[in-house]
């Protein structure tokens, strides 16, 4: 770009600046504020009266009226290509470890490093050949990226049909080299490289159709997979007050979920929590691939003290990277913690733009933004006939822990499953603290829905009895009711609750869940006859203790079978 369009600052208000411009400006294009050596990335978010309003992705300390702004004409974009996996990026795809190497402890302002190393050689294997018809998203070859075949695809902004003119031979290429040439309808040549840019706020839709999610995404968390399952390509949210276990639940899911790629968007929360993932994942083994977990992970890290506008961008960055890998026929999971911080970033900006505020000062478009975000999930069929999925799970941090607030409510309208964490459960250390009576799902899981419903019925019944007991005491409760209560407590403590920090109990794969569920289901629907409440209590206490022990034993071992026999014998002692 020889002739850069320039403007100059006329006003500064927090992270928003007003810029007077001469020629033209594109809504949502990127501009750079030039202060000395620094180039502060910004985005046009409103244009009025020859003034462009830009949100600055950095702190605005020291900016002056009159400072120059350079407009790029490009929308806020990320780089797509091999080398993204196992990276740790900030919200704008700046690689944090590389920044640390160069600048030390602190995050410098106004520096941009390459998101992927474009001089690194990748071993390319062609799959398309001369004369093939291709569309956006069609693979022309692949390179190995860790454990995956990273498909090199026709860029997603190329509409219509193209013909392959040539494909590079198998060999090592870097990201700047051309690996294929394709021709458009007019015979015009287009060079395909291994990487290209894509604007983060525009969904990648290089698929042939979107389908209803039906295949369960196994998380190995029992209460989720059995009672409130999520399907590949679906959406779910985890609202809960602070300390209820949102982050730990997402961390567990990021480790054990049965997907190909996990993208963690640490959005406006504690840096310390990301550090745990960052330091531990490289050491942890992915049980599916036996490789380091980091190889399937990308971390987008824009924690609470990092610039707020970049926080707003970070969830889009995460989804765009997710969509990219979905295009390769992979199952991707996006975990955003917390979407409330993203919503707050929108609120801050909206306030500075002096827009008419909605409830709790959130902008009127909050709902549509949240809906658009979750809409980017999906199970899709790709041009080459394969399937890919992107599942989105977001935590919500409601003010005061009260779900009747705009972000939670807007989210509940669009997601497919709701895992509501309750303060009462986390206070009683019943983890994961998903409230079994409030949560819901629209997806079908790994266990017969009719049975799940009946098990859930026991929980409801048990809860009713419990409420009643608090008023009339145990003395005033019938023994039948009391047994209902004990059964629901039993189901809760041995199945719904799960020790996320025990190597065996934390990871309950479908086979084990089905096996255990059947056993417990039998207990729930067995007619026990007790003479006294104390007998019943003692029976269930012992049964619970045995089942808990069982939870900690690896399935398929002698010990496991032995414990099971003990349990059966114990049950038999009453029913016989």
């Amino acid at each position, binding site marked *: 770009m020889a002739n850069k369009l320039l403007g100059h600052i*006329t*006003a*500064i*208000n927090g992270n928003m600046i*007003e810029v007077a411009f001469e020629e033209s400006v594109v809504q949502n294009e990127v501009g750079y504020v030039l202060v000395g050596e620094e180039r502060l990335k910004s985005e046009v978010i409103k244009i009025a009266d020859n003034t462009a309003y830009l949100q600055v992705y950095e702190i*605005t*300390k*020291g*900016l*002056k*009226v*009159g400072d120059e702004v350079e407009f790029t004409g490009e929308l806020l974009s990320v780089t797509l290509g091999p080398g993204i996996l196992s990276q*740790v990026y900030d919200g704008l795809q700046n690689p944090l*470890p590389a*920044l*640390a190497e160069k*600048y030390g*402890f*602190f*995050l410098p*302002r106004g520096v941009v490093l390459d998101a992927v190393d474009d001089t690194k050689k990748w071993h390319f294997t062609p799959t398309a050949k001369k004369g093939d018809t291709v569309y956006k998203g069609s693979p022309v070859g692949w390179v190995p990226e860790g454990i995956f075949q990273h498909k090199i695809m026709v860029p997603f902004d190329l509409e219509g049909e193209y013909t392959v003119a040539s494909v590079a031979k198998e060999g090592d290429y870097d990201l700047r080299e051309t690996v294929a040439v394709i021709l458009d309808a007019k015979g015009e040549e287009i060079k395909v490289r291994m990487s290209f840019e894509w604007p983060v706020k525009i969904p990648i839709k290089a698929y042939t159709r979107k389908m209803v999610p039906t295949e369960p995404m196994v998380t190995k968390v029992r209460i989720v997979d059995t009672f409130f399952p999520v399907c590949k390509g679906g959406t779910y949210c985890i609202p809960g*007050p*602070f*300390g*209820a276990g949102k982050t730990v639940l997402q961390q567990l899911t990021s480790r054990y979920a049965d997907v190909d790629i996990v993208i963690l968007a*640490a959005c*406006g929360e*504690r*840096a*310390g929590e990301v*550090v745990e993932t*960052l*330091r531990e994942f490289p050491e942890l083994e992915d049980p599916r691939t036996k490789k380091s977990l980091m190889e399937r992970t990308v971390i987008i*890290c824009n*924690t*609470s*003290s990092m610039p707020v506008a970049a926080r707003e961008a970070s969830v889009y960055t995460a989804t765009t990277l997710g969509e990219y890998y979905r295009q390769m026929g992979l199952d991707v999971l996006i975990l955003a913690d917390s979407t409330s*911080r993203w919503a*707050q970033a929108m*609120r*801050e900006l909206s306030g500075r733009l002096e827009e008419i*505020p909605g409830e709790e*000062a959130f902008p009127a478009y909050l709902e549509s933004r949240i809906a658009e975000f979750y809409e980017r999930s999906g199970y899709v069929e790709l041009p080459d006939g394969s399937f890919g999925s992107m599942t989105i799970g977001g935590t919500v941090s409601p*003010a*005061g*822990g*009260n*779900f009747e607030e705009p972000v939670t409510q807007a989210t509940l309208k669009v997601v497919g499953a709701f895992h509501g964490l309750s*303060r*009462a459960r986390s*206070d009683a*250390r019943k983890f994961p603290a998903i409230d079994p009576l*409030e949560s819901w799902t629209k997806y079908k899981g790994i266990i017969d829905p009719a049975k799940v419903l009946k098990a859930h019925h026991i929980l409801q019944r048990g809860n009713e009895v419990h409420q009643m007991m608090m008023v009339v*005491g145990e003395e005033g409760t019938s023994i039948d009711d009391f047994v209902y209560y004990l059964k629901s407590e039993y189901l809760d*403590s041995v199945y719904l609750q799960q020790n996320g*920090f*025990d190597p065996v109990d934390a990871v309950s794969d479908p086979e084990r869940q089905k096996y255990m569920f059947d056993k417990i289901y039998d207990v729930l629907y067995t007619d026990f006859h007790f003479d006294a409440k*104390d007998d019943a209590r*003692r029976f269930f*206490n012992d049964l619970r203790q045995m089942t808990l022990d069982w939870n900690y034993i690896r399935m398929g071992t002698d010990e496991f079978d032995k414990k099971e026999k003990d349990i059966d014998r114990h049950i038999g002692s009453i029913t016989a």
Partner: protein
Amino acid sequence: MKKVYNKILSIVGNVISVRARGVSNEELAEVKTKRGTSLAKVIKISNDLVSLQVFAGSRGISTDDEVRFLGRAMKVSFSDAMLGRIFNGSGEPMDKGPALSENLIEIGGPSVNPSKRIIPKRMIRTNIPMIDVFNSLVVSQKLPIFSISGEPYNELLARIALQAEVDMIILGGIGLKFDEYMYFRDELEKGGALSRSIFFMHTAADPVVEGLMVPDLCLSVAEQFALKGKDVLVLLTDMTNFADSMKEIAITMEQVPSNRGYPGDLYSQLASRYEKAVDFEGAGSLTILAVTTMPGDDVTHPVPDNTGYITEGQFYLRNGRIEPFGSLSRLKQQVNKDTREDHRAIMDGMIQLYAQYMETEEKRSMGFRMSTWDKKLLKYGALFEKQMMDLSVNISLEDALDQGWKILAECFESDEAGFRTELIRKFWPAGKDKEEKAKEEPSDDPTEEDISEEPVPETEAGEPAEKVKKKKGRTADKKKRRKA
């Protein structure tokens, strides 16, 4: 080049505006009035109209007073000469010592690159059992004390400061009462810690906005010392006053409030301070303990609520004690596995029994019959409160663990307290071990709480809520369910 203006266009709340050119965002200015000179900070610029927040407040400012822009953002001097000194909310000396001007550093600097952070692993011992045993404090932690006014939170801060093995203490007072300030000074002096302390004091008598800079002053100086290898403990009291000052400015600037008048960026503002807590690999560290008073004893009030979402746990101070329920150190699991093998078991077991005691206590007050087990719990509850929870208890972690076993043995048989057999063999006080009894005790184990003996979870969390809140939660839950 300093620019001077003497036409103030508006004075609203503590914000003034002038027409000026070449001024930069967040630049500092001096406002000279008949009463003296105050610092002011640029908070908004629109063409040549510049809004400034005046730290000494706007009272007595005349429209023709002089505004002089300093051409720089707020800075503070950083050197060893600061040790033992007392400064005000603008960083000027409050003691008789000289003003410091060498080695100026900018306050509120950039944040630490998350990829440079390390997993915290050093415990800070305080000799307070409710902290050391149940919610261990860890180097680089950021932790508030949630409290209502009237509670001895400043006493608690002073005590932790004196007992913690840190190199330096930086105390930031925001809206502190004069006698509280004197109290801190005397305590640190008595404890011989004054010479390794620095005070930034904004008292209740000072203009409200002047308190706004205190956290940044403290944290910027602390950060520098930490980079130089010092383990620094920063005490901030009271952060609710800080939030209230921000609220005042926001309202003056006619910002749309988000919740009870607080600005929409309250979370980000608080987070940018608390996130300064860090353990620098190969250098020192910065730990933050802050008092957050809860208006109306309401933890859902925006200030404690936003704080809880930011910090790594919280201590609830109520009735002069650190509450076992609700209090949480999110970092404790990083350190309590390497202390003593019974640490986690005592931590979980004693709290679970205490929760049972609370339930029994409720039953008792409602007139329900007390079983043998209930009576044991009542005895246990009383001992636990007296010998563990009371803030006057001042013993090492190891002694506190021993104390725990002693209390347990005084109240229960060794096999009914819910501990693993190997631990009982090793730690249950001699002579108190359960004798071979022919007759079995009636089992009154309540089913409410989980006493899983095996294996102790690697980590654990928020303890059972205190009764009142629990009930509230339940009724709220019920209501919602009915609606659904």
